[in-house]
């Protein structure tokens, strides 16, 4: 990903000979990275930074009410735009509140830079007020982190942070700045290139491996593409689509890969995995050659590893060499950027003879499409998801929370273009959906953005409704309210003999809550009210709209391959 310095920016002021403090140096560094928006919450150790931001008319700081929201919003911003998302927090509790969002960014390879205040240098390590070892804590959940000990080192640290976050396999980078470093005067050099001798992402695939992969695909009888988030990170949608168009090979997408290809494309089988379509799972498990691109053979896709696609030869393309062979041995490993490798691969593949294979897949698709039924007087969650797909034409940016509603939306929402499905995939962090939608809306104010959440997850971060109100965001928030932690309830129903331990929720009146925040609140209790409410919410401008939809509490999310099992054990119907 290129460093984002937009041409429309005013030319950087001549600051080389001028002294400035560390915080001003930081703000100027962010400006030079093209940062327009950052999400954060101030505190003691970051006061100098906020003082410098006060003067920065061109950098829009969005004050959130909890730092967790700042991190999730930075992820939403990054995933909707492809740019680096930025969040900031003070030392100690501010920084620890970022942890969940940074871990999400790490698991889902999202480019985020977090700037945290730290206690002043002389008291570091003395258990000072609001001190936490933030670089220590975030070591395993960041791609890189650094404690900056001199103001003059800030430009280099920021450049390195944005470069590391946005290139190779993207990820979060944290820069921790002690308060007295923010206050220290320095003469910064903004042009110094960071030296990163240990960081050299491989972008171009090995040509002979690519040729071998092309041969394997050309000769395949039952080939399939298994494509994931790496397609979106590298912008490889045109290449992936060209591969499907040129060869007719079916494409299954991971949850993270939604949007990597137009899901209404006839060659696209939609999502595979634990709650993926039966036909996509049957197809990948019967395949003889699997082209895995930008995926990591996550257990939610593979189930029991030894039974996953037992007859297949695996071609695995990934920019991260450590992903290749991590869970499943690759017969043809290719390290490189998905876009470049696919661009080299596509012209070499001859269309394989797969009419019989397609006939089989179409039979499966016909036999078990996604389907739902509306029980008497109850609102089906899936009906709402299906309707949102139809009303938006799959053209809106959707951010989901985590749980049943997330899987239903992944099943029913047919993404038409990249970066339109934002969900906490690897970490599965409840509380993600609404803040991610908030961040996405700041990234793409021109676009319809919506949040689809459950009643459980929404309550983890709903305090930031006020942030959406404050900024007059046209942001509908649809709550699929089943009065339960639905996925927990479902597992208890299937695997714990219906002992619903702590999974049934008593909820506030979300519509009234929306009203109290100054948002629009709508409560939907009957199936016939749903469509009107969705239309109203989607058309509501200048204010977030909270739509509390009271859904069928007993609806289960199917199909389901139980955790650690294989496609043979897939549960198809209630």
């Amino acid at each position, binding site marked *: 990903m290129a460093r984002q310095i937009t041409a429309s920016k005013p030319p950087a002021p001549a600051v080389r000979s001028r002294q400035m403090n560390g915080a001003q140096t930081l703000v100027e560094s962010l400006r030079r990275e093209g940062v327009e928006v950052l999400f954060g919450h101030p505190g003691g150790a970051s006061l100098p930074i906020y003082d410098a931001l006060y003067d920065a008319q061109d950098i829009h700081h969005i004050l959130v009410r909890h730092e967790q929201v700042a991190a999730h919003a930075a992820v939403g911003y990054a995933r909707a735009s492809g740019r680096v998302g930025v969040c900031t927090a003070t030392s100690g509790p501010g920084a620890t509140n970022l942890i969940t969002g940074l871990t999400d960014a790490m698991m889902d390879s999202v480019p985020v830079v977090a700037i945290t205040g730290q206690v002043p240098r002389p008291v570091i390590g003395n258990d000072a007020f609001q001190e936490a070892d933030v670089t220590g804590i975030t070591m395993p959940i960041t791609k890189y982190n650094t404690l900056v000990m001199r103001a003059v080192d800030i430009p280099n640290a920021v450049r390195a942070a944005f470069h590391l976050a946005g290139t190779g396999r993207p990820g979060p980078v944290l820069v921790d700045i002690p308060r007295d470093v923010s206050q220290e005067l320095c003469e910064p050099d903004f042009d110094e290139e960071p030296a990163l*001798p*240990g*960081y050299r992402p491989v972008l171009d695939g090995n040509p002979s491996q690519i040729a071998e992969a092309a041969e394997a695909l050309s000769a395949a009888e039952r080939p399939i593409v298994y494509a994931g988030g790496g397609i979106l990170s590298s912008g490889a949608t045109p290449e992936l689509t060209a591969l499907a168009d040129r060869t007719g090979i079916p494409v299954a997408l991971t949850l993270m890969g939604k949007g990597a290809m137009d899901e209404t494309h006839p060659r696209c089988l939609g999502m595979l995995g634990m709650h993926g379509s039966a036909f996509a799972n049957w197809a990948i498990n019967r395949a003889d050659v699997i082209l895995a691109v930008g995926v990591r053979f996550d257990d939610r896709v593979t189930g029991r590893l030894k039974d996953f696609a037992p007859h297949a030869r695996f071609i695995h393309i990934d920019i991260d*060499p450590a992903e290749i062979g991590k869970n499943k041995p690759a017969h043809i490993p290719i390290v490189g950027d998905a876009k470049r490798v696919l661009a080299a691969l596509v012209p070499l593949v001859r269309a394989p003879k797969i009419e019989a294979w397609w006939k089989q897949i179409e039979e499966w698709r016909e036999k078990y499409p996604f389907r739902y039924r509306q029980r008497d007087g109850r609102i089906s969650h899936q009906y709402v998801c299906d309707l949102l797909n139809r009303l938006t034409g799959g053209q809106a940016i959707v951010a989901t929370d985590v749980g049943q509603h997330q899987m239903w939306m992944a099943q029913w929402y047919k993404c038409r273009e990249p970066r339109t499905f934002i969900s906490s995939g690897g970490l599965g962090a409840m509380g993600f959906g609404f803040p991610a939608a908030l961040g996405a809306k700041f990234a793409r104010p021109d676009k319809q953005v919506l949040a689809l959440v459950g009643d459980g997850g929404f309550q983890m971060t709903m305090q930031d409704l006020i942030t959406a109100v404050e900024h007059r965001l046209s942001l509908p928030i649809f709550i699929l309210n089943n009065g339960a932690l639905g996925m927990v309830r479902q597992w208890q129903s299937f695997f714990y003999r219906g002992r619903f331990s702590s999974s049934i929720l008593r909820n506030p009146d979300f519509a009234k809550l929306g009203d109290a925040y100054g948002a629009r609140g709508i409560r939907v209790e009957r199936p016939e009210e749903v469509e009107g409410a969705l239309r109203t919410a989607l058309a509501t401008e200048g204010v977030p709209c909270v739509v509390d939809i009271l859904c069928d509490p007993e609806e289960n999310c199917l199909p389901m391959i139980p955790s650690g099992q294989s496609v043979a054990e897939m549960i198809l119907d209630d």
Partner: protein
Amino acid sequence: MTDLQHAATISVLVQNAPGVLVRVAGLIRRRGVNIHSLSVGPTEDPSISRMTIVVDTAPERTEQFAKQLRKLVEVLRATSLDSTPAVDRELALIKVNVTPGTRLEIMEIANVFRASVVDLTDKTMTLEVTGRGEKVDAFVTLLTKYGIREMARTGQVTLVRGSQNT
């Protein structure tokens, strides 16, 4: 090293920067693998240190560890040495009980292992031995009956044989 099920050696060149040791150790720890020994020291370039890590892990996972280590920004090179002919050495200091009756006996054993006496009192003798882990283990075993008061081992250091770099 006799009690290890699988001893896999990984040699890592790192930038000599704060926190690198924690990053490397943390990366291994979080995969639930025990570090049997880890030695760190400068290389011919003072800005670069070499870590030699012996981990208790199945051979097929060693390459995955090396790959994960290479992802650390400060790691310049990480090599799994299991399939490469290499020179391994470890140094141990062993303080053993002596009596006038056992002193010569212990020195004889030390001679066989080319260990040297680096300190001597009327009750103890401190021996220095260098060699492969197995040799040090054998030496330690022989000294056990005299009563080992304390012992310090450096952990293994390794370089690939021949002109090829580690």
